[in-house]
């Protein structure tokens, strides 16, 4: 029942006492004792000579408003699928915000009441739970499980760390989605831009008037292909091109993804991890071993997206979960 590998939070009191103790890092057993998962690998690492794009998402700043979801949708021409397809779990959003409920009133009950009873009680949700939000999109893993299973090399790793989709190679086996630990890949079940069943909900892709809103830099994906977050590769390419025209390197902060641009609280920071002076590199150095963590670190897929542990300023002493139940 633990979600510690997925989403992490701690209290301000603990953070003030020792910032190195607020995040739990999974260690795995090796012949030389417990090690960080990335110390043991069958994979060869990529060499990034020019850029290594990445993002950091501060769970303390994310308020869950959904602005990034819509920003991503308008930037990337993401289809609207309608109620029935959402029920069929076929929504197309490249970026979603996962919301977890939690309550801390089972913390010490394992010892007191025994494991089975506590687990049974945990099934019963709290009446006034705590909530945590986690923006989730393609993690652009350096050891991406999706890349190795594609029989047609439709999903590959770029020389700048991006996990990229080549839509016209994709034959729709969906092995990649099956193998993705983060479940961020979306399959096109229908031609959302021409199938009349979607004319009511996705009508803007059907008329000349509505199609004016589409971003010409991003393909409208056809039926039968897989799609996912591209880390706004079109924006990265544009930024690089502008810099190249001026015979310089792209400046930090010049290139931003649509989600990072739209965030009202600056929870998402995009940057070049290859550039040691970028704000992202500085942040990752500063937070290393403190709040920085990767989701599902122990499976060692080495994502390029880093999350920062959420810190709460409510002490368990007067958090109302127990008494309200």
């Amino acid at each position, binding site marked *: 029942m633990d979600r510690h590998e997925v989403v992490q939070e701690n209290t301000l009191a603990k953070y003030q006492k020792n910032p190195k103790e607020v995040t739990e890092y999974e260690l795995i057993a090796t012949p030389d004792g417990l090690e960080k998962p990335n110390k043991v690998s069958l994979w060869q690492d990529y060499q990034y000579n020019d850029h290594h794009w990445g993002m950091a998402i501060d769970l303390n*700043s994310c308020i869950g408003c959904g*602005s990034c*979801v819509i920003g991503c*949708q308008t930037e990337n021409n993401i289809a609207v699928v309608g*109620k029935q397809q959402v029920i069929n779990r076929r929504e197309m959003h490249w970026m979603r915000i996962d919301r977890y409920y939690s309550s801390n009133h089972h913390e010490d009950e394992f010892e007191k009441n025994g494991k089975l009873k506590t687990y049974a009680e945990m099934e019963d949700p*709290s009446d006034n739970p705590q909530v945590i939000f986690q923006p989730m999109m393609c993690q652009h893993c350096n050891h991406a499980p999706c890349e190795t299973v594609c029989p047609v090399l439709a999903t590959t790793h770029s020389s700048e760390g991006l996990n990229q989709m080549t839509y016209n190679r994709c034959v729709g086996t969906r092995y990649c989605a099956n193998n993705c630990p983060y479940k961020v890949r979306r399959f096109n079940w229908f031609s959302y831009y021409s199938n009349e069943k979607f004319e009511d909900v996705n009508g803007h892709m059907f008329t000349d008037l509505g199609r004016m*809103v589409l971003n010409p830099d991003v393909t409208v994906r056809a039926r039968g292909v897989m799609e996912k977050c591209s880390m706004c590769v079109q924006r990265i390419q544009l930024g690089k091109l502008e810099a190249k025209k001026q015979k310089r390197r792209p400046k930090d902060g010049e290139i931003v993804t649509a989600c990072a*641009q739209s965030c009202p*609280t*600056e929870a998402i920071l995009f940057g070049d991890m290859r550039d040691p002076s970028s704000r992202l590199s500085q942040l990752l150095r500063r937070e290393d071993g403190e709040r920085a963590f990767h989701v599902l670190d122990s499976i060692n897929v080495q994502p390029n997206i880093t999350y920062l542990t959420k810190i709460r300023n409510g002490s368990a002493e007067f958090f109302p979960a127990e008494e309200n139940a």
Partner: protein
Amino acid sequence: MKYWKGIEELDNSPEFVKNAFAEFPDFLPVKEGRAGTADDASVAPRRDFLKLMGFSVAAATLAACETPVHKAIPYLNKPEEVDPTISNFYASTYFTGSDYNAVLVKNRDGRPIKLEGNPESPVTRGGLSARAQAAVLNLYDGARLRQFAIKGKPVEFEQLDAAVRTGLASATGKVALVSPTIISPSTKRAIAALTGRYRNVEHIMYDVNSASGLIQANGGVLPAYDFSRANVIVSLGADFLGTWISPVEYSRQYVTNRKVRADNAAVKPTMSRHFQFETALSLTGSNADVRVAVKPSEMGAIALALYNAVTGAGATTGLSALAQKQVTQAATELRNNRGASLVVSGSNDPAVQAIVAATNQALGNVGTTLSLSAPSFVRQGDDARMTQFVNELKSGAIGGVIFYNANPVYDHPRGEEIKAALPKVALSISLNDRLDETGSLCQYQAPDSHWLESWNDYEPKRGFMSLAQPAITPLFKTRQAQETFLRWAGSNESYYNFLKDGWRTVLGANGGFQAAWDKVVHDGVANGSALTTTPFTGQVISVADATSRIGSTAKTGIEAVLYEKVGIGQGGVEANNPFLHELPDPISKATWGNYVAVPRKMAEAQKWSQGDVLKVSANGKSIEVPVLVQPGQAEGTVSIAVGYGRTKTGKVGDSVGANAFVLAQSTASGTLYHNIVTLEKTGATNPIAQT
């Protein structure tokens, strides 16, 4: 040489040509239902399938050869700054009566394709709400009106102008111009030109998400808040991160006090502490450090208890032990942070707001975390005046109405009464962008252009101004409302010149005006002020008076709160925007439609399960919505989102969900968004699409 794949193609029969354009043969259904539920009739035999697929492939191949030729015409004189395939950004402003956002419009080959936050703005500082992000799609909404019309017959601008001028001049009785809050100084001047010419025209502003109680309690102004300076925040049902007054601005302020870093050993990381007392689990409540679920009827007592605990004016009884404990804790922390704390309330009851205002006063927060001298302008609606209008409309005292982006038939609690009275009014004009619930009942249609097609200016807070400029020429034969007002007032000036003249006083009339103006157009934002607050005529409610009024509000029965969703909001132009319908609610993750959120205990006691349709009744009206079991919902309460159940907004939004505005209470002191309801199972089910 000719290649062909089948006899049909070779013969090129009319039926073949017809089917060649269909992606799926329409007699080959794509199954929707879950496996095992489809009946045999819907399953095509395998042989048919292969036959049809062979046909489709041939057809698709042939169809591909017949793509019509589109001609691309190069510029004769290329505009200097426009290059094909290169995007330009223009500064503009989004404001739809709810949230204000300074935006940059990404313009590609003459088409606005995306909105981004304008980092130059000191108010929204580069942030942009989900609603504003999606607003670019509203520009291309096919349901917008495409020309002016009189009684459904298309007319030219001049014909309608002449008819309206005659109508206004000969109108007997009052003419009401009904609009949501207007924060544009120039629009207000254009309306003043109209009311100046026709003395019987009166401008009435009302807000769907009204703050008139808050305004009344603060002597006629809406306080400007600064959450970044508050170490302790206590919110009584105000969803200030999601939907309350100016969420994007508040989110940024709020988060500056929540970001932590530990790289400086000398400075301990600190955070603000946030207490939230609320009924439905809101976006703000889900971010709070301490959240207490309370009934809406308890909110007044909690405000009072907090005030008493802060001022030491004695204890209050009648609170649950838990609420009392949390109130005491909150009050202690508030007292320890005098001048650096903030109490806000989402209630529209002037009595509750008066207590909250007194609490902030007692804590010395006025002038630090909230400002009354440099107030916010984003809510100016007067509920009492709107109620009076509805009464006048019913009594026949109104000789004419002009609706400017207002749809009270849908979104006012007394909408049905307005609907019944409207056809009897001698002169009815709608400037709404579509034939909505209100506009379709009007004789004259003078659709306003979209804000991306218009010039305008805005002043969300005193001292902060911003500009909107057209990013595209009007797509349809519409005219922006301000220009329409000027024409009706008998002026032939363009609104652009009218607006620019107004800015001479803001920027100073001396020689440098053109350069200063160019900078404003470029930046989109400027410092300066042009709006004035309306002089307050009412009386500020004293604490003693408020206390006695709150004391008499104890209630029995199931209480319902009506709330706004982060996406759909008040169900205005957003209601026909598919992006916002499919944006999952931050808490329930539900898309496409509203529902009645009930606490788990109530659902178990009543044997309701998720998706059961309930009939929710109040005020003698009822709506039918499915049940959603919501953790965090206060005991004995339910909550329902407004903004759904439109009937005349367009293909996307029509009949999605049910209209919960009918359940609101329209009282003498204002609209209250909670009520006592009865719930009844109908036996039907309606699945909720959650992600």
